[in-house]
């Protein structure tokens, strides 16, 4: 194969993961919309008996979007970007093709089993690590397969220097491996006692230690699934789509190593004013503030890549998705550190401001970047023209409006509730009973759910657009080219 013959890369695995991204995106977001409406209209809890309550569905939503939607997206983009920046085709190695397909099918089995078990209430209760030990083993297997795929492709590469996106993919692989292993250390009770459910386990850590390990994991799972691979995508797709070189190599260097160095400390900000040692809390707080530097470093690098080419925002909806994603990245990496300041956290913790913060990152930054990536990949993988730019425009504005409704209602709800919890009357007694602080939020819950619904509808538009591109798009004989300085 000619290294520069871009259309000869093998995208069969990337395509599989593209489909699963869309499938789990719809499922995960749909459940999200349902549980959001349940908070405004509690009657909706009774649509499916035991299996339809908010509390059963919430882990399904979080796991569904993180490990279903997003991880699929990470894998899809990896199987696309990896070949291109390493200048080697999957088709050149039978071994890597088998590993890739095995990776996909084991991933599907694990995730679909996870959906079933979470519906049944089989859970360890640890957030974003709810799966019981047999499924944890499945996750480890699929992760190792991904590792083989990454380092296998690196092993036969033609381009010797690893592009920035590769740094981030390697970091994703290593970071999640370490975090997942240590947080899911558990003892299967059946093997010790010989009785009870065979899949039940008990955590290796107790109480405060368990909390420390969990939030070291919980925070950094966010880092290494929601941030690191998304930066990998933006470093590849933004320059490719815009035809502009990355603004600064030095800035990407600083941001990458800075992010790696600082991020793992920040987990303590989930445990402020808890029973973990004070110095851990303080370090969590301080490092969260420092985290603004590498985060903004990446985001500014993205935005300045568009220097002198801002007109593309008008002509190319994909650029619009990516630039808004980078902007939301700046926004949520400023909001996060603010919430990590101890006095702010005293108000914000346990309130709706926290899910509000999570969602302006996930909907705005992660979701937009991922959809833009798949839109960019589709014409090149299927050799078809994108079906409709108008539909993309409509989707962009619908979803952007949805996000704004989401986070603004959650700001108001969170701060309102935080203030009401601590409000006292003139004698120093608590001014409100707990339920007063719940009923007052119901209008905001309704607005939030509607914002989420708009985002879901936008995602369905994305799905339709992708479907039509694949099935009915105009054939193209050569890869769409922008004035790109990069030949990959």
């Amino acid at each position, binding site marked *: 194969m000619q290294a520069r013959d871009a259309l000869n890369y093998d995208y069969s695995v990337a395509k599989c993961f593209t489909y699963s991204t869309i499938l789990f995106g719809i499922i995960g977001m749909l459940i999200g919309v349902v549980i959001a409406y349940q908070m405004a209209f509690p009657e909706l809890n009774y649509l499916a008996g035991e299996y339809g309550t908010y509390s059963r569905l919430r882990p399904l939503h979080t796991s569904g979007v993180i490990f279903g939607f997003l991880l699929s997206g990470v894998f899809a983009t990896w199987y696309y970007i990896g070949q291109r920046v390493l200048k080697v085709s999957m088709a050149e190695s039978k071994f890597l093709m088998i590993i890739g397909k095995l990776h996909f099918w084991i991933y599907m089995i694990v995730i679909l089993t996870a959906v079933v078990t979470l519906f049944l209430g*089989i859970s360890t209760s640890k957030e974003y690590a709810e799966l019981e030990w047999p499924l944890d083993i499945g996750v480890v297997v699929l992760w190792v397969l991904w590792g083989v795929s990454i380092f296998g492709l690196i092993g036969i590469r033609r381009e010797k220097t690893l592009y920035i996106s590769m740094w981030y993919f*390697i970091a994703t692989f290593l970071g999640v491996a370490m975090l997942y292993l240590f947080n899911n250390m558990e003892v299967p009770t059946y093997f*010790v006692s010989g009785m009870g459910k065979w899949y039940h386990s008990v955590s290796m850590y107790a109480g405060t230690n368990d909390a420390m390990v969990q939030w070291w994991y919980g925070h950094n799972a966010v880092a290494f699934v929601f941030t690191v691979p998304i930066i990998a995508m933006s470093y590849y797709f933004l320059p490719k789509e815009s035809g502009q070189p990355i603004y600064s190599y030095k800035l990407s260097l600083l941001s990458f190593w800075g992010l790696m160095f600082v991020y793992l400390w920040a987990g303590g900000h*989930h445990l402020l004013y808890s029973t973990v040692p004070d110095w851990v809390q303080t370090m969590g707080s301080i490092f969260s503030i420092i985290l603004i530097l590498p985060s903004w470093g990446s985001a500014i690098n993205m935005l300045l890549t568009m220097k002198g080419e801002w007109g593309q925002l008008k002509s190319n909806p994909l650029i619009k998705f990516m630039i808004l994603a980078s902007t939301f990245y700046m926004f949520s990496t400023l909001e996060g550190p603010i919430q990590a300041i101890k006095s702010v956290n005293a108000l914000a913790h346990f309130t709706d401001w926290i899910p509000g913060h999570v969602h302006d990152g996930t909907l705005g930054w992660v979701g937009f970047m991922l959809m833009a990536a798949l839109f960019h990949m589709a014409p090149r993988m299927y050799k078809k023209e994108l079906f409709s730019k108008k539909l993309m425009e409509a989707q962009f504005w619908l979803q952007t409006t949805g996000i704004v409704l989401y986070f603004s209602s959650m700001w108001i709800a969170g701060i309102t509730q935080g203030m009401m919890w601590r409000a006292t009357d003139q004698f120093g007694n608590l001014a409100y009973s707990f339920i007063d602080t719940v009923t007052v939020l119901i209008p905001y819950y309704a607005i939030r759910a509607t914002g989420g619904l708009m985002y879901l509808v936008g995602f369905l538009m994305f799905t339709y657009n992708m479907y039509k591109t694949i099935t009915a798009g105009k054939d193209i004989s050569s890869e769409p080219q922008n004035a790109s300085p990069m030949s990959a």
Partner: protein
Amino acid sequence: MFHWLERNPFFFAVGVFLVIAYAGIVTILPNFMESARPVVGTKPYTVLELAGRQTYIKDSCNACHSQLIRPFKSETDRYGMYSLSGEYAYDRPFLWGSKRTGPDLMRVGNYRTSDWHEYHMLNPKSVVPGSIMPAYKHMFSNNADIETAYAEAYTVKTVFNVPYDKPDMPTLGTYDESKKVVFAEAAAIVADMKSQEVKDAFKRGEIKEIVAIIAYLNSLK
């Protein structure tokens, strides 16, 4: 150095791993032993309470309820004494939660009763007008899994030296001995309840999830 690293994937990966791994070691290890020590008077859960705790986890009560009282006057006024690290020494996993859609439950056993919980799980609005919590009627028909609860207690006793069967501590014994204790504990709760369905089932030798979870909630003090 960086140019060299970018051409040597192995050393690049090692470098990244070192840079990300140190923080966990520095933050988690130094206080590990200290954080694992129980406060005087803290006892491990009885088998029935553990069965209730497993029901709590099965239905993800922790998605909406915290078990962590922060040291603010507004919190201690509302929920009681702020939380101490050693009170959680037997909590595997910890159940602090991250969101208070409903109130904190760390010391709910001090101010709610068995019959209150029974009404609340059947119809939250009947005791808390305006509540957005769903009813958990299936807890009245599903049986609690005493066997798995015993397995868990036995496991933590064996592997982590949790002090079951020590003076002033809950008894565990063999499974048959443990079952007797469980039924005696459950009988007291069933006697406080109104549900005929639960009472009839108890006579048949079945303990419903609702009984176990009430035992667990009552133990939170």
